[in-house]
Structure formats: C-alpha cells, structure tokens
C-alpha cells in the first residue's frame, strides 16, 4: 500500500504556476527527498500534502484518503512558520501536543528533550531560531504520525542546531513506523539519509530515482547531481 500517492498535481496562483504535473508514490518505511532551490515549489508541495492548501488540478491521496481531518492525525508537518504558542514552555508543549496526537509517544518526547538539549524553563518565544526548530522537531518525532513531512528543516538554522537536527534524523527515525518526506536545498549535510529522491525545478520534477542508483549512474553525489540538473 502507498503512504502517499500524488497524480498529475497542479497548483496555480493568480500570477504563477507553482507546481506542474507532479506525480509521486511513497511506500512505507522509506525516506524520500525533495531537492530543489528556493522557489522551486517545495513548500507549496508540502503545504498541499499537509492539507493547508488545495490543488488546482490533480489528486493527492494519503493512506488512500484525500487530505483532510482524517489524514491530519496520520501525518505531522514541520514547516517554516512557528506554529507553537509563544507562551509555551517545554512541558506545555508536551502536554498540548500530547493531547492533540492520538499516538503521541511520551517516552520518546522526554528522550528528545534530553537529546536536543531543550531548556525546560524558557518560553517558546524566548528561544533562538535554532532551538525553536529543535522544539518543532521534538513535536514531529513524538507525534506518532506515520508520515512525517519536513519542509527545509535546515534552512536558516545555525550550524550547532543543524548538526543536532541531522543527528536526530539518523538516531530517532524508525523506519518500521515512519515514512519521511524531507525537502531541502542544503543537500550535502543529509545526503546519506535518502532512499529515493525527487529533483524539483520551477515546479516540475526533472529527475527522480533511488539515491544509490543515481550515484551509480552519474558517479556523483546528490549535491553534484542537483547542481547539474537544477
């Protein structure tokens, strides 16, 4: 069964076409990358999958259903914006999101607070951007959701937090329960996490394939392939 199926998806805005003829097929327990420069349509694609916007044309199915109330419990989305209430301290975050997600993993949340070195007594609004990103990652991984969407998780983050985020992906991702869809324009730091990659340019998929197959075919790293095709 597919976790996510996208068929001939288009998203048009009044002045531009953000996504053209996108088709994707995600199977469980793998890590998929959406690689492309800023403005290539990555965030629009993720917002459509998360159900925050509607497609102009085409079909999105998550666990066989259209994005909506039912699918929202099965996926967790980490985007550019700060969705956490500014007054929340760490234990508020855990209590609030713990009640929101039906399969919240409390033990994992506690481990992640430790691993990510999140200060317990600071409000979300008092944290630096890097630490706000860590809190958002804590929510994502503890959610118990089967499909995790990470939209450019390293963008604009300081090196220390970037390293923590990358380590969290490698240490806490559990392929038996979770499928990852990660978009990024900083490829080199997480290039060994991907099973399969889609290269996105100007709203279109210009290349896709198994990461190791592409390495074999091009004798190049994902980062270098991106520079060639994008």
């Amino acid at each position, binding site marked *: 069964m597919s976790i996510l199926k996208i068929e001939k998806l288009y998203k048009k805005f009044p002045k531009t076409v953000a996504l053209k003829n996108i088709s994707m097929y995600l199977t469980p*327990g*793998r*890590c998929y990358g959406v690689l492309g420069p800023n403005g290539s349509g990555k965030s629009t694609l993720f917002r459509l999958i998360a159900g925050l916007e509607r497609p102009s044309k085409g079909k999105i199915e998550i666990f066989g259903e259209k994005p909506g109330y039912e699918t929202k419990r099965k996926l967790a989305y980490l985007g550019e914006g700060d969705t956490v209430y500014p007054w929340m301290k760490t234990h508020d975050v855990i209590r609030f999101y713990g009640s929101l997600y039906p399969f919240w993993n409390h033990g994992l949340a506690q481990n992640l607070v430790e691993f990510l070195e999140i200060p317990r007594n600071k409000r979300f609004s008092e944290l630096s951007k890097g630490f706000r990103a860590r809190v958002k990652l804590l929510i994502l991984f503890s959610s118990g959701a089967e499909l995790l969407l990470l939209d450019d998780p390293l963008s604009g983050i300081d090196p220390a937090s970037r390293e923590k985020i*990358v*380590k969290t992906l*490698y*240490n806490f*991702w559990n*392929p038996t329960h979770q499928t990852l869809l990660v978009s990024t324009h900083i490829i*080199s730091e997480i*290039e*060994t*996490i*991907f*099973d399969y990659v889609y290269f996105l340019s100007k709203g279109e998929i210009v290349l896709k394939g198994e*990461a*190791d*197959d592409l*390495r*074999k075919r091009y*004798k*190049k*790293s*994902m*980062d*270098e392939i991106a520079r060639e095709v994008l």
Partner: protein
Amino acid sequence: MRFDIERPIYLQIEERVKGWVFAGVYGPGDRVPSVRELAKKMKVNPNTVAKAYYELEREGFLVTKRGEGTFITKDEKTIEKERKRMLSYRIKKFVEDLKELGINERKIEKIKKMMEEI
C-alpha cells in the same frame, strides 16, 4: 563514518563489514551490530544498512538468526574466498596505477608475483 558519496553507499557498507573481518575486528561466528545500531553509528539510513546486510547474506558472508541477531559466517572458506577476490581486485587496480606511472612491464610482473604470494 565518512563515505565516498559518489558511489552507492550500500556497497561501501558491504566493503566495510568485510574489512572488519579481514582486519580481525570480528571473527567467524561473531555477532555484528544490528541494522539500527550500525545505521546510527555510520550516520546512514537504516534501509541502506539493511540492503548491505541482505547482499552480504546472499553471498553467505553474514547469517541472520531470528531473534538472536546477525553473525559473521562460521565458514572460513567463504571468508577466505572473499578475501582472495578482494585482494586480486585491489592488485588489478594497483597494477593499473603502476602502468599509469610509467613503470615497465617486467617490473610490474615482478611486483604482481610478489603480491599474489600474500
């Protein structure tokens, strides 16, 4: 662990596991790290480690026992055969390098003989 990111990662994991055995880090019948342990340590996708282990099992180099873990084969012939195969592959590459450096054929033959006696 650092990878050559221009080559398939799973192949490099296979080579690494074999390298451990040749270097004596693990002996025949020893338990190797689980897929998840190794993925964490190497900072790679667990699916990639699983693929490498799968290939190594197919070659008879690793054996997985349900509920117990993954082990180096006890069959030393398999290990020795693989060691010889990798050695001859490396020698072949080395000889190519020597040719590129302009070492003459006679000397290369001499060096090759010496290495094959290892």
